[in-house]
């Protein structure tokens, strides 16, 4: 059969979002790929130029809808850098709990979607059911199930609800047991191993040069994590290590990337439990919203010529906001907000990874990089 271009077009069950992947196939082998993003480009960067600093948080939730908390916190740290705000420690702990719970929920969504990519339909329902537990916790904290608008410049919008710590502990206990069930279904299935091992090799230095970071990078045998390399928040106060996978000598394959994320879920659960124990003031005390222990006073304008940026470990890699302040002329709005999405850089790299493998490997490879198109297209 001659070579032909196939467009796995914007609406496709595999693509985890709306983007086009054009592949050139020779029979069943992929010879070339051209990714085409921008289908849900909403112009968030331009919109942010006419919004207050506090109003931008809601937009950042909607950047990656599967992992909303990590994105709004990523913006908040950059805004605090710009405005020069110091955050109370209790607020940092609460933020950490929100971020890590969100990371678990995001990885569960990925795990649930990875099953149908490779053909297993049961695990989708199982993972979504566990995600319901995390959704319940996040709803208690933030007020809604998906876009919480949780952090404020200088702190968080409200304290942990009454009884949250006890509910969170019981749910995370159950979750840590349930992870073993997913592992059983995936790791002990020869078919899954055959589908994902030896597929989609990626080496560490090559990934770094391409701009790939996060779990995709840690699957290749290096333990680089923004949380310890450029420390922020209270990660230094807790005992944890980023999970690393020993990959093969040819690089990290899909199986390694899958295992890293499963271990990351465990680490995030442990981090949350530790944070609940170590919170200053205890996790059972309740402060009213606006209490100085939760929220510091923050200026609402940025002087001219200042800028703020912050690197952040998002569920999918290293995300960053760069905000240029505009001074008096801009009022309470920033001059320019620039968003770095890890997936925007990783998807072209993943498309390159697919060359040489079969068409049937495309969902396995693409799914293992965990794309989320909301943040890619902004």
């Amino acid at each position: 059969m001659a070579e032909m271009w196939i467009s796995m077009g914007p609406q496709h069950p595999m693509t985890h979002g709306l983007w086009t992947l054009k592949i050139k196939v020779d029979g069943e082998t992929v010879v070339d790929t051209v990714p085409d993003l921008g289908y849900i480009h909403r112009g968030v960067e331009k919109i942010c130029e006419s919004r207050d600093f506090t109003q931008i948080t809601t937009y950042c939730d909607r950047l990656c809808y599967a992992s909303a908390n990590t994105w709004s916190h990523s913006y908040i740290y950059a805004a605090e850098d710009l405005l020069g705000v110091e955050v109370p420690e209790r607020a940092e702990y609460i933020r950490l709990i929100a971020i890590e719970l969100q990371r678990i929920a995001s990885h569960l969504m990925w795990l649930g979607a990875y099953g149908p990519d490779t053909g297993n339909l049961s695990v989708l329902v199982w993972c979504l059911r566990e995600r319901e537990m995390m959704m319940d916790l996040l709803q208690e904290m933030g007020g809604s199930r998906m876009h919480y608008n949780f952090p404020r410049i200088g702190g968080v919008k409200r304290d942990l609800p009454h009884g949250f710590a006890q509910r969170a502990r019981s749910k995370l206990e159950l979750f840590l047991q349930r992870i073993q069930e997913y592992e059983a279904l995936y790791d002990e299935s020869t078919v899954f191993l055959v589908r994902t091992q030896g597929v989609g090799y990626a080496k560490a230095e090559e990934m770094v040069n391409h701009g790939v970071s996060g779990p995709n990078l840690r699957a290749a045998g290096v333990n680089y994590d923004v949380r310890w390399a450029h420390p922020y928040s209270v990660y230094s106060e807790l005992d944890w290590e980023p999970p690393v996978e020993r990959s093969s000598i040819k690089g990290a394959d899909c199986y390694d990337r899958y295992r890293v994320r499963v271990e990351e879920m465990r680490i995030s659960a442990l981090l949350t439990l530790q944070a609940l124990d170590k919170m200053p003031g205890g996790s059972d005390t309740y402060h009213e919203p606006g209490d100085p222990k939760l929220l510091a006073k923050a200026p609402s304008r940025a002087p001219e010529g200042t800028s703020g940026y912050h690197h952040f470990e998002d569920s999918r890699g290293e995300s960053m906001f760069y905000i240029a302040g505009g001074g008096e002329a801009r009022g309470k709005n920033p001059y320019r907000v620039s968003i770095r999405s890890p997936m925007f850089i990783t998807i072209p790299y993943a498309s390159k990874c697919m060359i040489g493998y079969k068409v049937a490997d495309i969902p396995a490879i693409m799914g293992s990089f965990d794309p989320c198109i909301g943040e890619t297209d902004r």
Partner: protein
Amino acid sequence: MASSDWLDVNGWLQSIVGWSMDQTHDLLPNEEYGLGPIESINPQSGFSSIQPALEAFFHASIMCTVVFTTLMLTMLAIPYIERKFIGRLMDRLGATTTLRSLWVGESGATAGEWWDQLPFGIGTPIGWTINTLNSIWGNDHELETVSRVNNRSYHGYWFLLPGFFQAFADFFKFATKEHMVPKDADKVVFEVAPVIIVSTTVMVFAFVPFGPHIYAANPDLSLLFMMAIFGVAPLGVFFAGWASNNKYTLIGGMRSAAQLTAYEIPLLITVLGVAVLSGSLNIIEIVDFQMGEEEGNVWNFFLMPLGAALFLITMIAEVERIPFDMPEAEAELVEGWWTEYGGIRWGLMFSAEYMRSYAACILFALFFLGGWEAPFQHTLSDLPVLGGVFTTIFALIPGLVWVLLKAWILFGVFVWIRASLHRVRTDQILEFGWRYLLPLSLLNLVIATYMRLELYGGGNWNLWVPAVVTTVSLIVFLIYIFDEDEEAARLKSRPYSTQAVVKASPGSHRD
């Protein structure tokens, strides 16, 4: 034939048709009618000369209708099993909670008390049953946050075998949908493909006996005929993939053609092994051999477990179920070779897929599980005291029931496999078929031939033969699944996976 039961549809039909033909014969006048100088017709004798052919024709057509109706009605259980079983597996709650889910509700409340709405209070005993079951064995709602994930409240009208009519509803939906042909598609081939697929699938059932007397046709070489027709459907699949003028369907059709061809051969060789073991290429004689008192009397499953496993695997590949459903993998190909079909054509092809699965299950039951014989039928009937009871019971239950039970249970196994395994990649499927299954099926054939020639001396099988074979296979199977290579296990455990040292609070985490 040797085996028989009271549901003698064939015989009844034969006598009815014969009786009606005789009545017709007697009604006709027995006189000579002159049509001219040479010719004269006697209607009665004229009718007598065509009567056998006419009887056979009526018998055959009515029997085909009866068999087709039996097929379609009993096939309604298949989507039901699939839907319910997959639903329970996806809940993965375990047998107890699954059973409990039929009556329990959220935190003790049940299903809106729908039974009180039934007229004349007929729902009251239902209410008593549900409430009693709930109070004895109800939902654990101590920790209501956690019970939200454990909870499985079933709010259906389960007194009507809930979801039973879903299959009808689905089919009517398909029947009323619009029929679209892609603009540049090859119209003739596009329309012909579903016809080929569905018609060959239904034709297969012409040779499949549902009971000792329920079959449409029984030639001497029915097995051969049936497998030949079974193998024509891939041609229709390929037509469908090509004619749709769509790159996705083309890839799907190619994959399907390659996969089905690759698995036809081990399938046929395995079936040949069954035929060798049973000494006949006629399906009814194969079943009679397994259940006969003078001949055979051992189910082929225990004589040839390898063959049974091979038949199962190749049949799952032939009917394109997960783990072998690459041709229609919706992760990449969005329904594969039948993407462009809509409406009744898709509905027919979808039901053809289930018909093929059903045929695979029934064939497994007939070839390996003794067909319409009850388990241990002769042994139980020969017991000293209870033997009479059992004989009566077995005489009352028609053979059809046993065939259907075995087929449905086996379909449950198909669904179980579907719910738990991932999809195998096409080239891996082909490699598996050509490099592993083909040699194994040849090995199976050799073993079957040896057993038949050397170990079978007419009459019954010696009892040690199936015992030895089954034990050896079981041991090999257990060794295969439990053997752990120390080195590989150590490498696979990946000690760098997690490095957190301190347990934050009582709870389990993997060390």
